[in-house]
């Protein structure tokens, strides 16, 4: 009796093994995308649930589902903690069969996930994090850095400010990987343009009250106060700087990284006149407007997409194109990313572009200025274009990044 049961079991196991074997012989057309983001904290509006929607829209627009592919998105909250982000990434790769992680704002978390992804040979399409190290010292054959980076911000905004006479700087810096990278990259730009940096104060991530730091910036007497922070930290600094009469006292703020939801949160009254660099704005052309309208209709609070959301959409779309060209099998992340680099990029939001060997996605950047309340026609009509930085000038030359993949 017992031996018969065992035989039956063995037969069942063998049969299962056979079916599994025959399944892998065919191409695997199941792709799972993980949106690892700040879902609830100070970066949740610029990435978060909007990035999940953007990925979802990219899947729909790729047309692969109609061709019999199975593609889905799951979301995770890294809470801006590298250890939490690493744990989720490991669990997704090892247990939940995630093939590619997207978005991931917060440079600290992004650098950690970059490492895990390389170790597991999966793919990492970063849109939300800023540190230029992702395509520099920390570059990886499994990572593409899509939307923007600190070098781009420093050169876009920093150079424009220095050239318009802002030659002495004091930094208000978020005290983690991102803030440090942005301060470093901007300092280089300021010095290269014969400006001086009089000092910096480093504040903890997610600070509500900036008055002490602003007072220090004020007493530094620097012409420009460079905000090397992001999200809620930037909006709070700008709001409180106007309260403490910093701009009225003759000093200028340079918001090195500002996203559309930040401007919306500040209101035009406070934000007007700020100049900053982004790579996407919803109101650029018919295609961006069409996408943004579709996006905002599906967002719970009807917000327009940030450049991070746009980057997630564009990156996932290109990833799926590469997947289709390979005929499936997302398991070998490095192979998929290599295919992505080989194919030119082209989509409605960023236009035509390329991905460099170091993982840097290349497209133009734009210097924007926030409109005055009188110039705005309504909600979300916030930016006017000051200058376009062509794609070949927008990002750090590959040879200067120190990436081991660049020969």
């Amino acid at each position: 009796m017992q031996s018969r049961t065992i035989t039956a079991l063995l037969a069942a196991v063998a049969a299962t093994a056979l079916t599994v074997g025959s399944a892998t012989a065919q191409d695997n057309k199941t792709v799972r995308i993980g949106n690892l983001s700040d879902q609830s904290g100070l970066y949740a509006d610029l990435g978060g649930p909007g990035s999940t929607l953007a990925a979802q829209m990219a899947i729909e627009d790729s047309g692969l589902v109609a061709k019999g592919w199975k593609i889905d998105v799951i979301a995770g909250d890294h809470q801006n903690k590298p250890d939490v982000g690493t744990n989720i990434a490991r669990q997704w790769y090892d247990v939940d069969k995630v093939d590619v992680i997207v978005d991931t704002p917060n440079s600290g978390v992004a650098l950690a996930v970059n490492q895990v992804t390389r170790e597991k040979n999966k793919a990492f399409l970063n849109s939300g994090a800023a540190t230029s190290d992702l395509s520099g010292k920390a570059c990886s054959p499994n990572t593409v850095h899509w939307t923007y980076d600190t070098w781009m911000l420093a050169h876009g905004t920093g150079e424009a400010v220095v050239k318009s006479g802002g030659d002495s700087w004091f930094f208000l810096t978020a005290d983690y990987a991102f803030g440090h990278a942005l301060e470093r990259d901007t300092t280089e730009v300021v010095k290269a343009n014969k400006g001086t940096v009089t000092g910096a104060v480093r504040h903890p991530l997610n600070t509500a009250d900036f008055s002490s730091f602003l007072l220090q910036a004020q007493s530094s007497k620097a012409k420009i106060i460079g905000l090397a922070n992001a999200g809620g930290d930037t909006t709070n600094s700008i709001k409180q700087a106007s309260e403490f009469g910093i701009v009225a006292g003759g000093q200028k703020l340079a918001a090195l990284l500002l996203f559309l939801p930040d401007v919306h949160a500040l209101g035009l009254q406070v934000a007007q006149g700020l100049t900053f660099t982004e790579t996407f704005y919803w109101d650029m052309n018919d295609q961006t407007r069409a996408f943004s309208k579709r996006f905002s209709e599906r967002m719970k609070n009807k917000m327009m997409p940030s450049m991070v959301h746009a980057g997630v959409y564009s990156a996932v779309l290109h990833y799926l194109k590469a997947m289709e060209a390979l005929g499936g099998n997302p398991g070998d992340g490095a192979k998929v990313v290599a295919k992505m680099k080989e194919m030119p990029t082209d989509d409605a939001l960023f236009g035509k572009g390329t991905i460099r060997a170091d993982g840097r996605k290349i497209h133009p950047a734009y210097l924007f200025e926030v409109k005055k309340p009188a110039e705005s026609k309504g909600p979300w009509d916030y930016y006017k274009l000051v200058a376009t930085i062509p794609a070949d000038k927008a990002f750090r030359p590959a040879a200067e990044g120190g990436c081991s993949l660049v020969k």
Partner: protein
Amino acid sequence: MQALYGQLVVGLINGSFYALLSLGLAVIFGMLNIINFAHGAFYMMGAFAAYFLLNWAGLGYWWALLLAPLMVGAVGVLVERTMLQWLTGLDHLYGLLLTFGLALVIQGVFQNEFGSSGLPYAIPAELRGAQNLGFMFLPNYRAWVIVFSLVVCLATWFVIERTKLGAYLRAATERPELVRAFGIDVPRMITLTYGFGVALAALAGVLAAPINQVRPLMGADFIIVVFAVVVIGGMGSIMGSIVTGFALGLIEGLTKYFYPEASSTVVFVIMAIVLLVKPNGLFGRTA
């Protein structure tokens, strides 16, 4: 040296918020024996109430200062009647867990509706502008926050420690049966006390609205520090929480000047030291 004076004033401003919030917590803990983890959520609701009043009803800051605490206080009364009253006599842990869960739910709902970057709320026209004190530029609004919260704190202390009503309250926490025997409606008094504590949090929320963004998580980020303030001052001590609130604001301000990287941890370092040396807090009565 000038910068140092500036930092001290800024510390006082933050101290005002610590004092107002920890005062509400102390009142609730002292009278109801409940560790009110939902305090940060009520603080946030106060700020949102101000925003709603302005944008939906057209009522400005001064009305909000009066109405928002009443509205949120009413929510507090409802919470006490429907949930917290059943926990009387149970271990502290139950109240803590219930209010913590409540805070998560409230924050989640607001976040779902309004996102996380927050909404703008302008400083009222009467309080715009700033004074040049020589060593710093003090915004009028911040000066108002210091004065107003100091008045509210001292008035609360006076009512609870120096009036007949306060005496009833304190008696009702010590020996509820006995006070009830004198014909005083103890459960109603406790409900109203909770409502009052919640209203204090909402008041702090209205005060904070023009300074910070009106954000769903504004309370969650703040409340942990405020709990540390309460622990340092001594759980349930009214004067203790006021004095410690202002003092810790000052110490934090000094840290921001001398070593800004530590400014978010200094309060907890002090808390650890106080717990080692005086486990009941600086102003706490020995149990």
